[in-house]
């Protein structure tokens, strides 16, 4: 969570500087700067995820060295999951919490001609992002562990895609539907990477042992 926060800080710093240095009246330029800010932020987030992976790697080595039986009390997969959840929660919290606070007060949604589904779609989008961050965490760490660069690249591309799709808003079908499809794909992939299989799933669903 802290790492996500720092990445957000740096990316907003860049965007802020860019905005201050540019003409505030030029709408297209502002929009372009915003897009640039978003993409840059995504890349920075992934970079910080990588840094976090490096830090956790070192921590695991330390724990292994100190433990009694030669294996660390927490595995890298668990750490990947926790890292993903942390990223996701922080990103979700920052996206939603002001919205929620405003939702408590009086007002009408979309009174100025914007979409009336603003709150709903924001909620769904945030949820899908949180899940995606969790899965991306697992995929990313797995890729780093096994030196599969294409996995890491896939995560980055997916993140860029989802953020880019959000530019379609308020055309929600363009942003929400693909995001959910991507989430399902990422979920399946992460599940398989974590050692799950169709048999496991079937056994779980049928409550067998």
């Amino acid at each position, binding site marked *: 969570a802290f790492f996500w926060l720092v990445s957000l800080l740096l990316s907003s710093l860049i965007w802020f500087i860019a905005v201050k240095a540019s003409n505030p009246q030029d709408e297209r330029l502002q929009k372009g700067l915003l897009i640039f*800010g978003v993409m840059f932020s995504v890349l920075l987030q992934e970079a910080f995820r990588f840094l976090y992976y490096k830090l956790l790697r070192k921590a695991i080595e330390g724990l292994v060295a100190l433990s009694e039986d030669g294996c660390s009390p927490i595995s890298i997969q668990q750490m990947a999951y926790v890292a993903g959840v942390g990223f996701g929660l922080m990103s979700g919290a920052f*996206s939603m919490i002001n919205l929620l606070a405003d939702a408590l007060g009086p007002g009408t949604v979309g009174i100025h001609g914007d979409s009336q589904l603003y709150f709903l779609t924001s909620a769904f989008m945030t949820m899908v992002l949180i899940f995606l961050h969790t899965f991306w965490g697992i995929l990313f760490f797995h890729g780093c562990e096994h030196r599969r660069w294409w996995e890491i690249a896939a995560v980055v591309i997916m993140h860029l895609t*989802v953020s880019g799709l959000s530019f379609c808003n308020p055309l929600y079908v363009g942003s929400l539907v693909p995001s959910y499809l991507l989430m399902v794909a990422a979920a399946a992939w992460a599940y398989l990477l974590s050692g799950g299989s169709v048999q496991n799933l079937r056994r779980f669903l049928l409550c067998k042992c």
Partner: protein
Amino acid sequence: MITFMNNSDSEEEPCNERTSLMSAESPPVPSYQDGLQASEAGEAQAHRKRRAGSSRGPNNIAGGETSASSVPVRESTLENEEEELTLKYGAKHVIMLFVPVTLCMIVVVATIKSVRFYTEKNGQLIYTPFSEDTPSVGQRLLNSVLNTIVMISVIIVMTVFLVLLYKYRCYKFIHGWLILSSLMLLFLFTYIYLGEVLKTYNVAMDYPTLFIIIWNFGAVGMICIHWKGPLQLQQAYLIMISALMALVFIKYLPEWSAWVILGAISIYDLMAVLCPKGPLRMLVETAQERNEPIFPALIYSSAMMWTVGMAKPDTAARGPSQQTWDAAEDGREHLRSPSHAESQMSDTRSPVPTRPITSLEELEEEERGVKLGLGDFIFYSVLVGKAAATASGDWNTTLACFVAILIGLCLTLLLLAVFKKALPALPISITFGLIFYFSTDNLVRPFMDTLASHQLYI
């Protein structure tokens, strides 16, 4: 200051041996100490309270042994075990400190957001005499710096006074001072707080009910904090008074002064705890030399101890040590080292009737604890509360400061595990908190607002 208590303040007879044992084994069983803030209280209008905590370090893991011959054997095995145990339980204690700090912050933020009283400007304390209502920025800055200087010097004077009293064993005076200040906190500030909360929610309460509630709350609080009581109740009370104190600070400190004071306090904490002649460090070391616990009203402890019936003849040393441990039933951890002490104790239990000097009649189990000074709680909550009160980015800024403070606390505890001595808990957290507050408020907020208005997601 953060302290790691490996042993309770159990006075065991071989005090001399123990202290020599302590010096014999250097790294193991460290006495972690948390930075504490010097506590000032007492005057009728004393709105500030700084907690000074002394740290205790008597290491009873290998201590308590009457035979020095068994010491070397235990030493080497204990050293390795110590490292592992330290790290294993270090993580646990990080969590054990996260919870109260989070609770305190939640209480403060919830109050700030709902009760208008604490965000209204109704004057200032006499400790910040310069007003900030000046038209020019430079003048305002100057006033806030002057306010800070006044405040810090008052704090320094109080801390030094406390240390001198402690050094010259004026325990009664210190005790009276602490009791007076906690009386004021528990009764007066709670009364004001309750009044304001009731006003906000438009709930009527008659005076007799109010009297009964406040009387009970205050009386139980006094007993819990200064005498004996269940550990969780004591922790809850300490959290509550920290929150009350933080709310008072948030209300009465002017804007810029508050931030400058926070920065200056963390620098002061750093120096007071780490410099050889720093007052807090001297307090800690004096307490360690005398093998005494820190004053009960000044430290939050996450440890649970079982100590029953200390019959120490040296009553002067026992005077201030009214730690309120209670035999809690749940979640006891069996550490290997305490079991050494246990077996040791059981050996000495039989000769107890014949040896009147034996202090402990029963020492069942010990659990290591981390101690955090209440001043740290207060200033963390002041930072987060101010962020909640004054930031225009509202919840994002508050959340960012919260995460920053917790990460700072984590890092401090990590350093504690590495250095194994008293550390100031304020600097890292407050620095992170300040950085994140200012940057989130000014940089992140416009970014997030623009993103939200276009419903873009990053």
